[in-house]
């Protein structure tokens, strides 16, 4: 492209380009802070964090798959079914609690079993049958959403179960309980991926599958495990989805998917090597949530938010692509 540019100048422009998504975000947040007086209050910040929980947990689940499968979206690792797994698990838990008189623990266990089974199904489709993750999870997500409609008859189910209410409203030492629980989950996930031998191997498999196999790693096993873990996180997220919505609502899977993909790939913009990371996904979720609440508080029409988020996806990935091009 720029044959005349010096290497130093090229590196600088790459750094600038790859900072564009973050700059756009910071500019938007500053704008909200200036326009909506209450936007930077602690109460609003807590609300932003609480609203971010389901997306953050889902994004963490998705990032396991992306890290283990490589970040080429078509051929590498992607799990588009994590949000629909959460919706399916939430549907089962809500249905059991509301209409079958099942105990809280048993209902949650049933939902979890469905989520793990769904993750297992993805793992089999990808590692045994050999479907590309994109195709496998796109197809399986339609099946999961179909099952969740079957379970709930496509109706909203209100919940007032103590567990769900505690997760929504409970506080420990002044901090929301749900937030603490989610933070603990995310910290465990960060430790597993970025601070353990298993995590290093998972990253090796995703970074260069051939090299990892030559080094003696069973790549297929790691990929299968990443899909299983994504299923588990889908199940965990279902509790937070139920808490945020005070029950199970049909049709939330698409919004969740959009926010999860945005948060996870936006998170890559924070990492020094511009790769998807667990903590990046969690941070991305917080930014996405801040954006949603910010747009609400300056009175932007709710129909515009999809437009803005879709535009942000494009800005983020285009900046990453341009930065990669100018680096090589």
């Amino acid at each position, binding site marked *: 492209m720029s044959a005349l540019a010096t290497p130093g100048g090229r590196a600088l422009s790459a750094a600038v380009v790859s900072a564009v998504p973050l700059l756009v975000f910071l500019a938007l947040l500053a704008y909200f802070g200036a326009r909506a007086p209450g936007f930077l209050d602690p109460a609003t910040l807590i609300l932003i964090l609480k609203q971010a929980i389901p997306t953050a947990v889902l994004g963490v689940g998705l990032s396991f798959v992306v890290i283990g499968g490589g970040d*080429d*979206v*078509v051929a590498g690792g*992607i799990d588009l079914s994590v949000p629909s797994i959460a919706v399916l698990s939430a549907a089962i838990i809500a249905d059991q609690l509301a209409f079958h008189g099942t105990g809280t623990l048993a209902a949650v266990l049933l939902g979890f079993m469905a989520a793990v089974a769904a993750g297992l*199904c993805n793992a089999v*489709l990808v590692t045994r*049958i*050999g*479907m590309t993750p*994109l*195709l*496998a999870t*796109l*197809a*399986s997500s*339609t*099946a*999961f*959403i*179909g*099952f969740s*409609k*079957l379970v709930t*008859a*496509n109706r909203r189910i209100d919940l007032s179960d103590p567990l769900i209410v505690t997760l929504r409203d409970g506080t420990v030492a002044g901090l929301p309980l749900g937030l603490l629980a989610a933070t603990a989950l995310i910290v465990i996930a960060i430790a597993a991926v970025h601070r353990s031998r298993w995590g290093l191997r998972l990253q090796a498999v995703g970074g260069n599958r051939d090299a990892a196999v030559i080094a003696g790693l069973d790549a297929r096993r790691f990929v299968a495990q990443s899909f299983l873990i994504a299923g588990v996180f889908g199940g965990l997220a279902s509790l937070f989805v139920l808490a945020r919505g005070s029950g199970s609502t049909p049709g939330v899977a698409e919004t969740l998917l*959009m926010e999860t*993909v945005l948060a996870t*790939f936006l998170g890559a913009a924070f990492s020094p090597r511009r790769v998807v990371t667990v903590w990046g996904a969690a941070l991305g979720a917080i930014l996405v949530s801040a954006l949603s609440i910010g747009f609400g508080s300056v009175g932007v*029409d709710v*129909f*515009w*938010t*999809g*437009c*803005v*988020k*879709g*535009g942000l*996806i*494009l800005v983020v*990935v*285009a900046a990453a*692509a*341009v930065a990669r*091009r100018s680096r090589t």
Partner: protein
Amino acid sequence: MSRLASLPSLVGSGRAAFARHGFLAVVGLAIVGFAVANPSFLSLANLVNIVSGAVIPLIVGLAMTLVVALGAIDLSVGVALDFGSAFAIVALKDYGVPWYLAVAIGIAGGTLVGVVNALVVVRFRVSAFLGTLGVFFIGGSLQRIFTNGGGPISFRRLPTEYYDLAVGDLYGIPIRILIAAALVVGYFLLLERSALGRKIHAVGQQSRAARVAGLPVGAIVAFGFVCAGATAAVGGLIASANLRMFTPLAGNAYLMDAIAAVFIGASMHRDGRPNVPGTLTGVLFLAMVANGLNLMGLDFNLKDALSGVILVAALAFSVIQHRRRT
């Protein structure tokens, strides 16, 4: 003796034939199953019903075949379909344009979506998946903004010619089937019988080799996205003529089936490439399953779950078939 010696190769070729045509065996089984469950499945009226119901999915499937043949994917075909429908209906209703102009405007609407995709993917080098996902969300949001939340725009006094796109017939053959047939032939000639088609497959199989060989890869990919957008818009024209309204976000319903049909079709190809006859088979199979499940009188939600499972199973089967051959 010589017959014995040739036996293994006979078995081998039998297995290869099953691997390639195994999906047709599944289609046959499905037909028998649905016919047993409800004899009216095989009635002429119902078969015509299946084929004419498959027209819009087929058109979207053709668009997807082209993009997947380029080694990409287009998640925004539904948006292109909706834009085609919206542009045409608004042109007819608010500007009173003649029907042929409305058709042109609708196709221009879908082309616009294709141009945006081409810009994002070719110019900004965004991966086709994430780029078209972004366009998918933006397109959906624009439709909500435009319709103030997603209410349909209906126009009962459509010009007859426009209405006939969906319900009319020519010498007893429904016009929508003629449109689909013309597109099938056009896409077949483009992808399987033309120099451009060779180049498209070359880009899809080995993009770097194609570039080294001097092909204008960017221009070919851009052509694919634009052509796919325009094609999907034709589906939108038929949909809007059929219901005499523009229904926001209706196009997304065709996305999954289009992708599934393309991959089912690719599994039936000698080299596992997306191809027009394969997509046609895949679309008809999915339309048949939907129709058969309807005739069984199942609960709506159960049908949704079942068709999801069948989708996964059909795709898994076609991938296994493809792997067994290579």
